[in-house]
Structures are given as structure tokens and as C-alpha cells.
């Protein structure tokens, strides 16, 4: 979707994207020639359609949406990124091990963390270290 300032015949540029409110994103556009501003307000349906493409809206970095960017987050709600470092079952992550998990793209990370925590619990580890991660890799044939 593109917006044109009719009096100036100039394409408008995104100026701001406000955080979503009940599924609606507010995007303001301005005309680089005359400075005229307008806002596009999406309905949840439109927001969902665009976010389903796996893209972000806005000029600078990702815009947080009501729907987490992780496409699998609905099925791994217990393993969301905002989960505490200490998992409910009492398994802790060392900073080094947690840092290594940052190497996994965002959409897989919650699932991978949940899986490693399960592996750690079943293996009798109370703390997930780099060594435990290597142990998991070996167990999973990597």
C-alpha cells in the first residue's frame, strides 16, 4: 500500500508507527514536500493479514504487535521470551547458556528453550550450562 499527496503528487513517507491497541496499528505518513500528515489506522483483520506475512511495519525496526512475532507462540505460550529466567520447574539458565540460545532465530527460540529445559529436567540437571547444551546436542544427534 502506498500513499500519495495529491496536491504535491509526491509519495508520502512513514513518519511514526504507534504501538498496537487492541489489534490496531496507527501509522502516520507525511508528505516530504508540504509536510501534510495523515494517519492510517488498521483494523485487527488488516493487522493480522500483514503480520501473517512475517514482515514488520514501520521505518525503523520491528513494531511490537499484539500478536507476538513468533509464529508458533500460540502453541508455546508457556515458553515465551518474556518467561522468567528460572523456569517454573526450577531449571535455571546460566548467562552463557542463555546467550548461546540467542543465536537461534526468534521464532524457534521459545520452543528450543522449552525443549532444553525438558531435557535438563529429565537428565537431572538443575542448571542449564554450556555443557548441558552440548549434552543436548549430542543426545539429539547433532
Amino acid at each position: 500500500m502506498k500513499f500519495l499527496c495529491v496536491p504535491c503528487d509526491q509519495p508520502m513517507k512513514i513518519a511514526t508507527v504507534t504501538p498496537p491497541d487492541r489489534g490496531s496499528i496507527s501509522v502516520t505518513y507525511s508528505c516530504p514536500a508540504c509536510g501534510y500528515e495523515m494517519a492510517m489506522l488498521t483494523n485487527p483483520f488488516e493487522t493480522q493479514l500483514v503480520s501473517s506475512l512475517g514482515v514488520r511495519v514501520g521505518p525503523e525496526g520491528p513494531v511490537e504487535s499484539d500478536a507476538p512475532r513468533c509464529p508458533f507462540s500460540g502453541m508455546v505460550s508457556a515458553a515465551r521470551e518474556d518467561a522468567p529466567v528460572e523456569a517454573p520447574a526450577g531449571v535455571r539458565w546460566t548467562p552463557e547458556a542463555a546467550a548461546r540460545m540467542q543465536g537461534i532465530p526468534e521464532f524457534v527460540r521459545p520452543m528450543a528453550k522449552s525443549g532444553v529445559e525438558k531435557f535438563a529436567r529429565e537428565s537431572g540437571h538443575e542448571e542449564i550450562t554450556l555443557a548441558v547444551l552440548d549434552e543436548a546436542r549430542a543426545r539429539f544427534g547433532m
Partner: protein
Amino acid sequence: MKSYHDIVGDGGSNILEQVADQKERIARALSGVRHRVAVGSGKGGVGKSTVTRALAGALAGRGLSVAIADADFNGPTQAQMTGLLGAVPLPGPNGIDLPRSRDGVGVFSVGGFLGEAEPLDFASVSRGDSHTWRATREFAALGEVLASVAWGPLDVLFFDLPPGTERTIQYAEFLGDGAAFVLVTIPSEISRGVVARSVAALAPRRNPVLGYVENMSGYYCADCDRVKPLFPEVRDGVALDLPCLGRVPFDPGLAFACDRGLDFNDLPDTSATRALSAIAGRLVESLETLG
């Protein structure tokens, strides 16, 4: 007044460029994959996943480097079939490293970390309208999977497709012209009809359709060591205008092995495993003709 096509970009989000970038990332990640083989049907319940798993195991047993992308997000079975329930992808030096089955097949399957009785659910701000965006979301997720995994050099990457003729064509478009297809049917007239529709749907595309596998082609009776009919014989049935790669009798032992995630190459020598091994050989020959 300028028209849409007179304007470069979309004012800042560059949605189209982001989508193009996703495709480039996928192409880079798959650059070491020699052959992409989508195993589909159109019909559900014909054994696409079983055939996929068996062919992957058979090819790995021949020394080929093989992986499976379980594209059936709503009915993922490959994790269980390969003995990788609970195995999760973990970070490696070049991306996500895949869990490997005992027979050496790399596997990405949502079933590895989704509870057996849990339906796949996507977070949404538009509840109640999932029929309008769900497929888009699934393909975006598959794209992220393909772009993020360190597939490395592979001889064959199998895609285990979900059922549905429309899904078959969607995956053909998503995977691009270079992806070859193997279709799976069972001897019933209904199944052959659905698969014929998939063949027709794929016909306008450039994707090579290597042939079909007739699964459940009779059943193997271990007591009498014979294959007996499982479906009524069909005369003058729907013709499938593509090569038959082979016929696989139903084998409870194979079903058991899939349920338990056993190593394909450890299975006893039966008419079913022999048929699957022969199909794997024909598949390799077909792929070689593609270059």
C-alpha cells in the same frame, strides 16, 4: 497524478522488499541442497509421511545425505516416525542444527516439541477469521524454518506435505520450479481420483513430477508370507498419467516401526521394505535425470 507503479517503495515499511528478502534467505539456506523432493498426494491418510520417512531412511542407508522438512504443521508426524519426539533444534555455528534420527536423517518437525494432543495454534489479533490468514501464516513460518536451518550440503531434502490438492499446488509455488514431486495414492478409486486432480493441478507448472507410489497395495501377511488384496480390484479406473515408482503393501511391522520411530534400515526384510528400497532406487535414478 502518479500511479502505484510510478512510486518506488511504500513509504518506509518496504513490505514487498521484506518478502523478497525472505525468499533470498531461503534460497541461500537451501543452496547446498541438490534435490528438493515434495511428497504429496492431495488425499489424506494414504501414507505420505510413512513413504517420506521410509524413502529418507533408505536413501540415508545408501550413503546419501538426507533431511526431512515436515511441512504438515497441523498433523506433524516426522518427529515420532524418526524417534525424535522431544528433540529440539539447537544453535550451531551456521544456523539451527537439526536433530538427527539414528539412521542419520536430519528432521525438522513441529511434532518434536508440540504435544501429541495439542493442536497447532497461532497467536492472532483477529480471532475468528483464521480462514483468511492461516495459510499465509503457515507459509511464513515454513519460510522462517527453511531460512534459519543450517541444512548444509544435502543430496535430498524431502518435504512431507499436508493433504489437499490446493495445498499441493500452493507448496509447488512456494518451493519453486526446482522442487520435484512424488505423489502417493492407495489403490482405491477415490484416492486415485484425488491424486489425478493433483497431477492436473501441477501440470501447468514446471515442477518435475517424478511419479507416484501406490501405498497399501495389498497387505503383507507374515504368517503366510504373501501379499493379499486390501482394496477391491478396480477395472477401468482413473488413469494416472505418470510413472509408478512402485507399490508398497501394507505391513503392520512398518506401521509399528513408524509409531516407535525405529531405524528404517534395521527393519526386517519384508515385501514392504523391499518395495520401499526399490522405490528409493528409482527415485535416485529419476533425480539423476534432472541433473
